[in-house]
């Protein structure tokens, strides 16, 4: 049972991820709607894993990844991207994100990716 921080500027997406994650028995401990908030909430909650949207206002998802990795190089971050954002995903992975999931979300792929990432961490 992992503690998850969900970062996405669309409440629609946050709700969807929450539903998927909670159905699997994990706990969503916080939500963030922009890059700044993502870093703030990470500092406050120290979750086991963060799902991070790539495109967000104020601070971008990639920037937020850098911010979190700076604070803790072992942080577990999964990027959420839309189709056609391969270059951005690459950048995010280079910045320290562990893996990525693609929108529209298939619940099974989301869970599989999360589990993979959490396993490696354990």
């Amino acid at each position, binding site marked *: 049972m992992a503690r998850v921080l969900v970062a996405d*500027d669309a409440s*629609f*997406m946050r*709700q*969807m991820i929450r539903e998927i994650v909670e159905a699997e028995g994990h706990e969503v401990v916080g939500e963030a709607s922009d890059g700044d908030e993502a870093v703030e909430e990470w500092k406050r909650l120290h979750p086991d894993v963060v799902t991070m949207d790539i*495109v*967000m*206002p104020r601070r971008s998802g990639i920037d937020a990844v850098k911010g979190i990795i700076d604070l803790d190089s072992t942080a577990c971050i999964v990027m959420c991207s839309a189709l056609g954002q391969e270059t951005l995903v690459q950048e995010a992975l280079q910045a320290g994100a562990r893996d990525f999931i693609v*929108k*529209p979300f298939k619940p099974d792929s989301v869970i599989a990716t999360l589990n993979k990432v959490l396993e490696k961490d354990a």
Partner: protein
Amino acid sequence: MDLAKYRTIFIEESTEHFAEISRALLELEKDPASAEAIDVVFRMAHSIKGMAASLGYDSITELAHRLEDRMQIARDAGRVGPHEELSLLFRGIAALEGMVNAVSEQGEAPMADTDLLADLATLAPSVPSKKKDPTGAEAAATPPGEAPAAGAKPLQTPRPPPTVRVNTRTLDRFLSTVGEVILNTSQVRTVSEAETGQNTALSEGLDRMDRIVGELQRRALELRTTPLLRILEPLPRAARDVAERAGVRVEVQLVGAELELDRSILDRLSDPMVHLLRNAVDHGIETPAERIAAGKPAVGRIVVEARREKDTIRISIGDDGSGIDLEAVRRRAVEAGVLHPDLAADLTPEQIAALVFEPGLSTASEVSEISGRGVGMDAVRNTLESLGGAVEIATERGRGTTTTLVVPITAAVQRVLMLGVGAEVVAIPIAKVERIEEYPSDKIERTGGDAFVLLDGDLVPVLDLAARIAQPSAAAGRLTHLVLTEVRGERIALSAERVASQQQIYVKPVPELLRSARALLGLTILGDGRPMFLLDPNQIA
């Protein structure tokens, strides 16, 4: 996973996104290099795309994706392309909105227009890239036409304040319950007044209850109010659309949009406002050439201003266009049989202007596709009057026209005058009551079907309320009460047997079954449990 609730969120969020996109696009019209506005449109399109993809609305996803790509180009270039580019974006957004509405109404997203998709896919040729310019020269960054004037401040459309989203049905049920509490409190008071006698503790308790319930009522009414911004916000963009089709240029300024109004009233003002705005752009504002010839700036100016005045809010739409051709109105009124030719000469300019509200008077161009939509000026007036308000119009040939909607602040609680008519008790809104006079009923002049009295040197028509609501009239030789009021600018007297008191009552909407009776504005439950109807003098006359 249950996707039904996500559909609702999708529609709600998309609606908010569209409002933000509109603001941003209008900003980009004035400042094509606004990085913030470009970012907003990009992110909103991206967000709508994401949601649509999650729900399987492929056609919406595709259109949003194209728009997002377009905005990505703009982001890279540091600016949006010239006029045609913005028009294309507006078109794209309008189409996207249409598709989301279709989902909301029919549950399915229609296919996107293939021409639109093709247009969106063609690369914008004249957007110079900010990044790679080998010659190092400041490439033709200024599009043909005028550059934005140095230091020009874009007209800021106000941002709505932070809010909490509440399900409207929940809110309505809550307010309805509060209304019941208020009605019940006064019932308890009526009953207990008979019983309390010398019981001061009970009396004091009831007084306290009155005060607290009054406070609850005030708070509940506050919940019902929403800033006017909600209906005013779409106006600048609607004006732009109409202006483009009409071949004129126009700028809309919103003043006082932070004022609040009861939600149910607000919703009914939306259509009239759009209609008046369309009229202003379509019939009021002249073409740039005409304007310059008349010594006016090429861009027409429309000011939408909301002001609070005691118990009402006045929302005016004023343009600096050509004004109404009163002669043409007078002529059409006579032609249409609305005005007798002999009377036509005697009318004041205000009275002629008021004729535009008469049904059947639409000039040919008013029925055109642009100003159509089945909402004529007569419908505007009807709507306002059914809300207990009015419409005023002032015009000056060559200078412009201003139409003002006068709206009561809240429909729910109104001050009314209670009248006894036969066995019934009815109420009329007190706002328009000038005064009440006792008058011997046999002194009322009757000719044909009409009745008159001479008051203050004027002949004032008298309406027998009893006859109007099928109650026995007052017996002859008795004194009757004449309630002097105003209907459509004309003074009339409503005759009623008894005048009870003035009261503030909580007005409930007329039940569905009775909606077609236009004379009924609402109803309330009296202290003794009887229902009492609120009548609309405009409809009874």
